[in-house]
Structures are given as C-alpha cells and as structure tokens.
C-alpha cells in the first residue's frame, strides 16, 4: 500500500521485536541439525609454556567422542589479520590451534567432536598436555623490556610503532607558559555480550558447498577471510549471521573456532556446532583497551590550549586478531578532540604479552583517545584554577557547516560544539551544582559532590575505501543495498550491514518507506547472509547508517528514476511534467493524476507495456563508498556523590547531549546512547580484567568481573535536539552506536576526581573503585595536599 506519511525522524516501533519478545529468535544456540556433532576445545591451564606432548588417547576413548584433533591433523592457513598498519610491522603467526607453545590462557591445542555438548566438554578436559612452563609477561611496560619474549621468531615484543607525527609548532611542548604532564592507564576490559560466541558449520558434501552460521558482526568479511584460512572456495562458502545477542566489537572478528568447525564439518561430512562457555569467552574472545598514555598539554595561564601530545603503549595480547594494531591507530585521528590546538603529536607502540588478544571494543581507539584528552583538559583547568566548563568553551573548535580539514589531517564534515556544551550545562543546572559543591566543601561534609565533563568528537562512518587503503587496511569501507519492489506491493530490502541489536530492520525500513512512499510495514529488510545479501561490509565503527543507510538512499533514487520513466509512459506525459509529491509521481498541476510505486511495480512486473529502454522488474542495487568519515559530537556531564570516608561513588545525575546529524529514529538513538553510557560507566567505575602474578586471568567469571546491573547504572537524561547534518552524505546522518562509550568514561572519572580535588586529589585511574578513591584521599592527606586551592595543584609540572 502506498502512503503519504513520512517516517524519518519518527519513533517507529521496532520490526525486530515480535520474535525477540516471544522466544522465537534465531540465536546460534537455537540451531540444531540431524546428525550434528558438538565441538569443544582443549585449552590447557598454562599461560606461557612450550608444548612437549599432547595425549589424546583418553579423550578419544570417552563415550560419544567421534574424534580428537590437534594442529597436525589440519592443513589450515593462519587466521586472518587484515590491518598491517606499517611496512615494518612484525606479525605473529597465529594458527587456529597452537602446536609449539601456549602463549596465553585461552590458547587451544586440540579440538574434540562428540555426540553431545557434555560429552565434547568432558573429553576436551581429558586431553592431556605436557608442557614446560616459561615465565609469562603480562604488563606492557615489562613486555617492552623484552626480557621474556612471547614470539621467539620475532625477537621482540614491541611489534609495531605507528607515528602520526606532529603538526604545528612543536616547541610549545617545551616552552609554553603552562605544561601539564600526565600518565593515564586504561585497563583491559572484557566485552561481555550477554550471548557468547558460537557457530554451526554444515554443508552439501557432494558439491563441496559449506555454510557457517555464526554469532558474528561481520558475515561478509568472515566469508572472504575464512575461505582463505580453510581452503574452501569463496563461491562455495556461505556465512549467515542469525539473530546475534550483542557484539560490542567482540564479534567483529574471525576466530579459530569458526575455521575449525568448517574444516571438521567438511572432513566428517556432518554438521558441527560449537557454543562458547562464559569462562571460555573470558579468555578466548578478544578484550578491549589495555593502553597507557604519556600526555602533555601546552597552554597559557588564561586557559588557551596551545598543543596536545600523546605517546601511547598498547597491549596487543599474545597474537593479533583481525584488526588488533589498527585499533590504537583508529584513535590516532581524533587526538585534537573537539578543540582547536595549534600543535599536536601522536604515536604509539604495540606490544605483545601473554594475554588474550585485544581488538575493537565499543568505540575502538576513540574512547581511549577521548579519555586521555578529557582527563588532560581537566587537569589543565585545575592547574590554572579555572572552571573546566570555561576551559572547554574557550577552546572548542569554531563551528563550520562545510567540511574542514582538522589539524590531524582528516576532513571534519560539520561542527557546532558550543551549543552542545551549553545545553548539557543547562540541563544539569551546572551553576547550582557548583554552588552546592562549594557549600558542601565549606561545611566539610562527609559526602562530597563532583561534577565531571566530557566534550567529545567521534570519527564514524567507516570508511572511505581510498583512505582505508592508504592506512594499509586490506578491505574497503563501502556497503551495498538492493531494493526489490514486488508486484504484491511489498518491498524487499537487502542490506550489507549486519545488526546485532542496532535495529537496522526498522531504521532501514523508515529510510526506504520515505523514499518510496510505502509503509514500513510493507518492507522486509534482509541482512546478514552472504547468499541473499552478497554485497556488504558489515557492522562496526558506527558505520551502518552512514554507509549502509546511505547506500539505501541511492538505491531508492535508482528505483525512483526507473519508476518515473514508467509513470511518464503510462500517464502519457514527459518525465519533466511529473513531480514526486505525497508518496507518488504526480502530474504537475494535476496532482490527482498520479502513479504510486506499488502500482508501477505491477507494471514493471507484467511488463506488458514498458517503454522500450526499460527492463522489466522494479529493482535496483547501489554500492556506496563514502567520500568522507562522519563526525558526531556531544557533551556529557556526570554528577557524583563520593563518600570521603569509604571512597564509594554514586552517580546522582547523568546528562548526555549528542549530535549525530539527521536522526532516522529518535527512540533508537536514545537507546544507543543509554547502552553506550552504561558501558562507559561500567568502564569508569567497575570493570577491569585482572591477572595474577603468573598470568592467569583472575576475573575469570561473571561473578569476579563486575558488570553493573540496573542498581548501579544511573537514570540518564538524553538530548539530541541538535542535528547538524553531515556534509558527507545526502541523508545528513552521522552515527550514534559508540557515542556513549566514548563520552562517558572521562565524564565519570572527572566527576569522581572533582568530588575530592579539594582534598588534594589530582588523579584516580579507571575503574574508580571505592578502594582506589579511598587510597587517593589518604595519599593526598599524607602529602599534606588537603585544603590546597584548586589553582595550586601539585602533582604535575
């Protein structure tokens, strides 16, 4: 049915929900097939050890076991790594199964197939590995000393050095009137999608065609790369992402288990299924963050930021996964923040350690950068005794409607930052809060108030393929869309993006609905299957709407061009005499003489009387390569109460003001911000992957790794009334998936420090646990810093 309603900008309820709400989702563990075998992996309890022998006899004789395999049983190529960011980078060889050495807690050495899940798990436990333990290196600075080498053939743990280099007058870092130097540590995080990973491989053996159903964010990239690892011809491999229970970057990867399941299904000619356990997830699925920054801010006494300089050390883990060293590089383009420094420097070194590989975690490089920028700006404000809101305001980059090249070299599509800050300060009632803070300080209250700010920019919409090429990334950044208008009036949309909670079925239907004048109810969005949606680059980096969504727009334009020709032919007018209005092509001056898209779809289908040059069927495909990134921005304010006697922090208010360009569905945008902020709060106050002295992960279960629940996550106030259109694409969209996770950690930590800064505290690291806060207070007291005025901060020089 045609409609004249518009849907972009409306809080349209989700098309995804009915199945998910009634227990009929297609998550990977809901898949089962006749003759299916279960796969389990043997991960020996070593951190760093030379493997002397693997005895599989006991495991092989256990009930239900069909086979036990080690590396020598396979002829697999190494796992894919697609981002060799420099020419000199050293690349650790990473096979699906380890055979010479175990290099971290999660390294697998054997794989078991059995008739049931339990039998497979029991047998994997029974694989006996003899090994000679080696000293392990967990800490990145220790690893950089090369006393313990993780990969002997590389000869060093410092595997990559990437320098953006400097811009502007570097002498400011020595000679500016105010120099603030700080070191910030950002611990490792475990992504914790509530659904763990898992996959099912099956095939049609006589024709050697194979399908992998896998809980992934990237079925398209997985297909290409797994063909390489397994030796299955690319055109005989199909990858399906079913309903996926969250990703956050941890499913933006291609893992050993996917290659092994495919190889074994092909070898045994039986379906093979693997579901990751949660403990296994904690060691075998990528971690995030794990970085250390030495930072310098050069400024003036009145608060002008002259330059910012960052030297980073980044933990790669024991191997590279798909993108590992590319993550800090991705952050390496936003170290100016929303400010206007006249000089910058950024470089980082990547170091391998005996830990789980790191890779993208919601925000991927940009939260790491934003955290250190925002901490540093606060530190600067404290040093010169100025209000952090004033310092931000005076240093924000001036607004621009058109794209402008940033000091770090990329084109920022559009910018208008100050109103975002003002809006956030207004919503939180900043001046009132400062007054209350003063009162509490004067009274010496036990519970002190802290106000933390974070003004941020993001670089989203990954990515122009030519820039990715220049950055040595192996793939492109385009995405595809196909639209088919069926004669029944229904519209099929095939997208190359692959959602796992981001509501693409709904938002994409809104884009197409507006374009074609049909109701979203009449639109079905297909995704995540390389067979039915072959043209795609998947979902990560807040790229989906800014690339895949825009591809839809261009497919809509193609459909309309074809439909206009047919309409003009049928109405016997020139094409120029038609205008698109109220969901139909209408004759100018006689608007009731009109043709809708569903009507024209029928004409195109029976093709009885089409103009000579027009092909039957109303369908179109567009592949869109974005000419630029998109640059969302925002201002977040966190208000905390800190109990100065226990160090306990409670968030009492949280305001998030975000500008993500044109909004397709405000309900979905708000949900993305909520979830992102919650993950940022978790990072700021609770979560940290911890290891014991011998390198075993001690936060190895959900009971030890503190994922906040509804009682710890605060109610949030969100605002997205400012929509500065992107100049990169015709929809004006920028992306919102990562904003919360980028903005929140520094807002929260700045608030905690602010609450106790009058006691002399100048730094507290993430996660700001009660113990850390309490210690910081005690140390400040010990130093006699208590009572120091905000303008006389000691710790930095």
């Amino acid at each position: 049915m045609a409609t004249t309603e518009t849907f972009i900008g409306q809080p349209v309820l989700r098309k995804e929900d009915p199945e998910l709400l009634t227990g009929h989702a297609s998550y990977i563990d809901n898949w089962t097939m006749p003759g299916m075998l279960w796969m389990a992996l043997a991960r020996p309890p070593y951190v760093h050890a030379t493997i002397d022998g693997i005895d599989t006899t006991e495991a092989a004789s256990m009930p239900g076991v069909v086979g036990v395999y080690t590396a020598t049983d396979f002829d697999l190529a190494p796992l894919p790594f697609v981002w060799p960011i420099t020419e000199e980078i050293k690349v650790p060889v990473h096979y699906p199964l380890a055979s010479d050495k175990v290099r971290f807690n999660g390294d697998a050495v054997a794989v078991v197939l059995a008739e049931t899940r339990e039998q497979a798990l029991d047998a994997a436990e029974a694989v006996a590995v003899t090994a000679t333990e080696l000293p392990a290196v967990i800490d990145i600075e220790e690893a950089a000393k090369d006393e313990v080498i993780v990969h002997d053939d590389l000869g060093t743990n410092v595997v990559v050095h990437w320098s953006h280099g400097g811009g502007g007058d570097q002498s400011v870092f020595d000679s500016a009137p105010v120099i603030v130097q700080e070191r910030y540590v950002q611990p490792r995080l475990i992504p914790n999608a509530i659904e763990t990973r898992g996959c099912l491989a099956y095939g049609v053996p006589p024709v050697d065609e194979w399908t992998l159903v896998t809980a992934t964010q990237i079925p398209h990239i997985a297909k290409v790369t797994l063909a390489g690892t397994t030796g299955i011809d690319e055109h005989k491999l199909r990858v399906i992402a079913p309903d996926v229970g969250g990703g956050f970057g941890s499913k933006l990867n291609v893992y050993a288990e996917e290659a092994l399941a495919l190889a074994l299904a092909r070898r045994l000619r039986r379906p093979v299924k693997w579901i990751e356990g949660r403990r296994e997830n904690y060691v075998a699925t990528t971690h995030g963050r794990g970085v250390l920054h030495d930072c310098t801010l050069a400024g003036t006494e009145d608060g002008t930021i002259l330059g910012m300089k960052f030297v980073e050390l980044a933990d790669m883990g024991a191997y590279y996964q798909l993108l590992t060293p590319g993550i800090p590089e991705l952050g390496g383009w936003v170290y100016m923040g929303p400010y206007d420094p006249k000089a910058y420097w950024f470089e980082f070194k990547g170091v391998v350690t005996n830990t789980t590989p790191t890779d993208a975690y919601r925000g991927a490089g940009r939260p790491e950068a934003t955290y250190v920028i925002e901490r540093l700006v606060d530190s600067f404000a404290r040093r010169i005794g100025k209000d952090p809101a004033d310092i931000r305001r005076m240093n924000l980059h001036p607004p621009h409607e058109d794209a402008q090249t940033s000091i770090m070299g990329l084109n920022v599509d559009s910018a208008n930052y100050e109103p975002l800050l003002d809006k956030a300060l207004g919503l939180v009632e900043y001046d009132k809060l400062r007054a209350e803070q003063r009162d509490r300080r004067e009274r010496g209250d036990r519970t002190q108030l802290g106000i933390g700010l974070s003004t941020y920019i993001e670089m989203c919409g990954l990515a122009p393929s030519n820039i990715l090429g220049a950055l040595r990334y192996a793939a492109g950044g385009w995405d595809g869309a196909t639209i088919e208008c069926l004669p029944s009036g229904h519209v099929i949309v095939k997208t190359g993006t692959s959602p796992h909670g981001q509501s693409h079925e709904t938002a994409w239907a809104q884009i197409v609905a507006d374009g074609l004048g049909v109701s979203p109810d009449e639109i079905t969005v297909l995704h995540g299957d390389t067979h039915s949606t072959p043209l795609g680059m998947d979902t990560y980096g807040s790229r989906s709407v800014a690339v895949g969504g825009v591809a839809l727009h261009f497919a809509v334009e193609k459909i309309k061009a074809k439909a206009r020709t047919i309409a003009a032919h049928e109405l016997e007018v020139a094409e120029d005499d038609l205008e698109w209005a109220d969901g139909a092509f209408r004759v100018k001056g006689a608007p009731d003489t009109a043709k809708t898209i569903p009507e024209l779809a029928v004409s195109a289908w029976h093709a009885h009387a089409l103009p000579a040059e027009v092909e039957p069927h109303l369908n179109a495909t567009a592949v869109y390569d974005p000419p630029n990134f998109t640059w969302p921005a925002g201002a977040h304010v966190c208000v905390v109460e800190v109990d100065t006697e226990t160090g306990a922090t409670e968030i009492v208010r949280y305001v998030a003001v975000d500008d993500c360009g044109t909004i397709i569905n405000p309900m979905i945008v708000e949900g993305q911000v909520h979830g992102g902020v919650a993950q940022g709060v978790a990072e700021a106050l609770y979560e940290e992957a911890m290891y014991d002295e011998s390198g075993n992960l001690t936060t190895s279960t959900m009971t030890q790794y503190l994922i906040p629940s509804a009682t710890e996550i605060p109610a949030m106030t969100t605002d997205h009334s400012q929509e500065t259109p992107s100049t990169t694409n015709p929809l004006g969209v920028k992306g919102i998936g990562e904003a919360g996770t980028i903005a929140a950690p520094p807002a929260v930590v700045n608030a905690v420090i602010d609450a106790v800064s009058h006691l002399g505290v100048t730094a507290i690291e993430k996660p700001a646990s009660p113990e850390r806060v309490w210690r910081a207070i005690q140390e400040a007291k010990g130093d006699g810093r208590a009572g120091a005025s905000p303008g006389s901060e000691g710790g930095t020089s």
Partner: protein
Amino acid sequence: MTHVSVTVNGAMREADVEPRTLLVYFLRETLGLTGTNAGCDTSSCGSCTVLLDGESVKSCTMLAAQADGRELTTIEGMAEGDQLHPLQESFRRNHGLQCGYCTPGMIMAAASYLKENPSPSEGDVRLALEGNLCRCTGYQNIVKSILDAAGSMAGAEA
C-alpha cells in the same frame, strides 16, 4: 536416566534425561523451548529466568529433576495467541530491548516481581532486576517498560 514430568506453559511434558541435566538445557534441548537463553556458567546473568510455580528462578541453577511434578512458564507461554502479555507489549512500546538476548529473562523476572509488588517505584524495579544483566540497553528502557506494564496491568484489573 531420570524421568522428569512437568507442566510447561500449560501442557504436560515428560522425558528421560541424564540426572545432571540442568533445567535450562532440559527446556532448550529436550523440549525444544529455545526462548529461554543461557548466558553464563555462574548463575550471574539471569537470561535463563523462568517461572517455577509462578515464581522466578534462574533455570541454570537447578536440575531438571528438581522441577519434576511442578509447573513452569517460559517466555513462549506469556502471549495468549496473538495477544502479547502486557510486559511484552510494554517492552516493545518503550524500546526495552535491543539484541533481545536478556529479554526473556527480564520479562520473566519482571512478571514474577510485579505479582509480588504490583505498583513498584523506579528504585524498586532496579533492585528487583539486580540478578539480570543487560549489555545493550543501559537498563533505562527496561525499567521504564516494567513501570509502564505495571501501570497497564493495574489499569486492566481496575
């Protein structure tokens, strides 16, 4: 093998299972009711929450055998035909789910809680959800959904 017979969503179901079979896998794998999810191995996440004789339990914390002779409700039993349960309706209306993986557990936990406390405050709801983790929504719209459902359920009864 142990014989287990239960009433699930109003229907009598029985099967012989290994004594160590957890209730969550009995539901999912023996009975094919895959709406109940499993997200951890330490009883932490709550995605496996079901109703046992009307009260919420984490179905990974008990054996199938312990449910013998008792009555279970899973997410598949919440809607009446095409008519969604008020909680399902309100989760949809308030965007209380994103990837949906935690959602069945959240809804079952909420259904049990609202019976106990039909007009909770926001703080009450947050506390009641302490055993259910969500990584997508930041909980805000889950809490909103449950408060909204409480309102509509009270309205329906009035």
